[in-house]
């Protein structure tokens, strides 16, 4: 069995090991973590033929530089508009390539997006916690943040010539400046004019943006009365409003309970796009009913499943493809005569 060894030459802040997430422990204070943009992570996996997401690396705008010290391994990158430089060959962050011994892979922020995902064809060795390698940023448990000088081991590393090439970036992976919300569950504590302002005025994302959440700037959201609500369970997507009237959208590493009122909750299928936005980007929230939210999420889930299944399908090897193209082109071996 072949393995590959990679050295982290440079890792920006918030570059972490993630898998699909750590589910079922919210009752013990543990949110799911996992990728900020779950669809792009699933796409990177699917591009290598995997329909079940496994361990990979979430790269922030801080960027990542790896050097292959030993072996060779194919990898997929998906998410955002980052730039990729593999041994001098430049491409977008929607690509499958192979890194050979002595070569460098450089991933840097680009035109859009806040996160991109790097997944290897092989088994990336990482620390697990509660059965998952996803990094929980508050505690550092799980695979953890990458640090310069650290080595990454890929077991069962493969070179996948059949997978090499560009990945089509689907529309659902691109932020469009909007998000659907279901109002509540504590909208009754806000002045009606505040709920209206939240839904009618675009908000800006601020640079108070990490894996726990993103603070927004825009109209202050005033409570109808001074309020102390008991701490209650919160979700990825909860829009909680602190005492100063400022809303925060909670993201992958959110706390599991909180005592601030939630004016609205972003529906799950819009969170990946929201997470890809950047500080200063504008976002407009649109209210839908709970029934509409379920309809939207179901139709988005269908679209994603279709795309992922298509992408993950086995592909003919490069030789087979060349052979087929030759046949289609009418160039046949002279032995047929």
């Amino acid at each position, binding site marked *: 069995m072949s393995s590959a060894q990679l050295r982290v030459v440079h890792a920006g802040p918030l570059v972490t090991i993630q898998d699909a997430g750590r*589910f*079922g*422990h*919210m*009752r*013990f*204070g*543990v949110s799911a973590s996992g990728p900020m943009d779950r669809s792009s992570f699933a796409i990177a996996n699917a591009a290598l033929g995997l329909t079940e997401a496994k361990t990979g690396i979430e790269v922030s705008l801080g960027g990542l530089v790896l050097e292959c010290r030993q072996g060779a391994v194919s990898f997929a990158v998906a998410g955002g508009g980052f730039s990729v430089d593999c041994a001098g060959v430049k491409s977008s962050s929607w690509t499958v390539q192979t890194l050979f011994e002595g070569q460098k892979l450089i991933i840097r922020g680009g035109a859009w997006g806040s996160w991109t995902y790097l997944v290897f064809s092989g088994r990336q060795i990482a620390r697990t916690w*509660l*059965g998952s390698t996803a990094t*929980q940023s*508050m*505690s550092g*448990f799980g695979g953890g943040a990458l640090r310069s000088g650290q080595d990454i081991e890929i077991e069962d590393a493969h070179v996948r010539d059949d997978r090499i090439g560009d990945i089509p970036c689907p529309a659902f992976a691109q932020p469009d400046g909007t998000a659907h*919300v*279901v109002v*509540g*569950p504590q909208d009754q504590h806000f002045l009606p004019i505040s709920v209206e302002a939240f839904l009618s005025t675009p908000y800006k994302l601020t640079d108070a943006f990490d894996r726990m959440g993103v603070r927004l700037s825009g109209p202050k959201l005033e409570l109808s009365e001074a309020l102390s*609500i*008991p*701490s*209650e*369970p919160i*979700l990825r*997507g*909860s829009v909680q409003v602190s005492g100063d009237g400022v809303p925060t959208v909670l993201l992958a590493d959110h*706390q*599991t*309970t*909180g005592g601030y009122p939630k004016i609205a*909750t*972003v*529906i*799950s*299928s819009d969170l990946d796009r929201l997470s890809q936005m950047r500080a200063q980007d504008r976002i407009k929230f649109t209210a839908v009913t*709970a*029934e509409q*939210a*379920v309809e*939207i*999420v*179901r139709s988005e*889930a269908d679209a994603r499943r279709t795309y992922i299944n298509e992408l993950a399908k086995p592909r003919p090897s490069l030789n087979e493809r060349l052979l087929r193209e030759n046949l289609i082109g009418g160039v046949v071996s002279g032995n047929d005569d």
Partner: protein
Amino acid sequence: MSVPSFKAVADHALLVEYATEISDEVNRTVIALDHAIAEAQINGVQEVVPALVNLLALFDPTQTTHREVEAAIRALLPVVPADDAKADHHVLDICYDEGMSPDLEAVAKARGMSQEAIIKAHVSARYRVGMYGFAPGYAYLSGVPDAIQVPRKTTPVRDIPAGSVMIAGPQCLATTIIMPTGWSIIGHTPAKIMTGDPARPFLFDVGDTVSFNRIRREAL
């Protein structure tokens, strides 16, 4: 206990709320409903998060809807508040010695009591795990005696070590990781609330009861 209210949260969760004010009775009713939902194995429900006055049921929106989950939970009502006497009980060692209890003196001063009287009240009380929250393994233990209750500090203190036992209002909590806090630290426990055992990674279930056993520094 009255019928809870139901509120849809996003596309994939339902908030079931019994009251807006915290009480033992309300929390024990939430815990009973949490148990009933776990037993019922409702189609599409993936996870339930119990808290002090309400619980959140998370479901897969491609499998079910708010309406179906609400109907399934309503069919379990009414529930009888959970009985503390039937819950698992845990005894945690605690050391109140100097160096382990940086805020004990301030709590004693605030309540006009001696430090020994604060310790005696704290160590004699019986607590219930009302919920987890804030950080992994942070179990909110309700039952701090009225006489020693103090409000949260106005400014949080950074880098509080794991194992700190601290109080704020009626709640007591033993920390599991290094975190900032505005609570008053009155002791240290060597108990591992995050057990490291994959079969039972957290020492308490919500609804379990807890008491403390005083030890001296030498026994730590």
